[in-house]
């Protein structure tokens, strides 16, 4: 739903740093608990990058698996939901990975 706005932010961040130079590759980190869909970002990227330094750049998306930590027994487990119960029965868990939305790097021509 919000991926077009997110992609505009990505293009704007990379453009600011490219300062007019052509960009060959953009690398993103997107956590799988972030509510942002990588496929939707890929679709939007082609539209948003037109006429910018990022046009035709290869978009690399590193998906980061979600992990949660139980605040009661400290156990860390993988998760695909932003909430969930722990083996110990507690629902007091906090995501410690998977909420990333980051522009990692760019490669210039």
């Amino acid at each position, binding site marked *: 739903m919000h991926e077009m706005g997110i992609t505009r932010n990505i293009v704007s961040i990379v453009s*600011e740093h490219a300062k007019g130079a052509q960009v060959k590759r953009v690398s993103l980190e997107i956590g799988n608990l972030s509510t942002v869909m990588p496929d939707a970002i890929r679709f939007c990227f082609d*539209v948003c990058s037109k006429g910018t330094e990022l046009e035709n750049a290869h978009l690399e998306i590193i998906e980061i698996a979600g992990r949660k930590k139980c605040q009661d027994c400290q156990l860390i487990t993988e998760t695909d939901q932003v*909430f969930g119960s722990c083996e110990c029965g507690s629902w007091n868990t906090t995501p410690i990975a998977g909420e990333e939305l980051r522009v*990692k790097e760019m490669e210039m021509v």
Partner: protein
Amino acid sequence: MCTTCGCGENSEPKMIDPSTGKVVSIDLTKSQDHEYTHPHDHDHGHYRHHQFHPSDASSGNTVSLEKEILAKNNLIAERNRKWFQTENILALNLVSSPGSGKTTLLERTILDLRKQIPFMVIEGDQETMNDAERIRATGCKVVQVNTGTGCHLEADMVARGIEELQPPKNSAVMIENVGNLVCPALFDLGEKSKVVILSVTEGDDKPLKYPHMFRASDIMILNKIDLLPHVQFDMEKCVQHARQVNPDIRVFQLSATTGEGSDIWYHWLRQQIVSMATS
């Protein structure tokens, strides 16, 4: 430009003051450079300080950026938050799906508490001035932000709203977000708390279906309890679902139409204002 979906070239976000009819268009592409006129400390050059310099970490033609995609919004939100704190202003971000009764809850709250708490309202909707007009009828100062096709408010829109409203010290700024249980969870506005409103005419499993929003909220208001005899809504199960998603969430059950249960919500609001003033 649409802030979210990219469609609708003629649907730029705009802010309208219903008392004067003044319309200000909000160009989010210029958000980091705009001039604030409200009296808070901030650093317009902040982004520049953190920009990449050619000597920064880079390898060949690869440049390491490590930039948060929502950094611009988060920075403006933090500025808003600091200003609210300095002025002892309680800012709440009211979020829900459309039709949960946010505006009715605001109307009632303002009318019942206006002698104790000065309220100001920032109304967010894709289109129309309807909600701002309803709030204005209570005598409360309000601005309407129309997001066009955008499905949430962003921190910059709130900054413009503050500029227009000029809220006094020790007041409460109520931000009624666009009716949507997904996108507003991702965008910090600088509020003290998000308050999620869920009406009993919706499903009691909404906290599980939209966990990000219920996780991001400190308070859940279960509204329209006067309709409980007529709907299949399991109150206990709903609270249980909300606590699974967010064990710390506080729950108030009320009817904004009849006023039933409002006292505990009002008590919480008054407490927040007092704790802002004494902290």
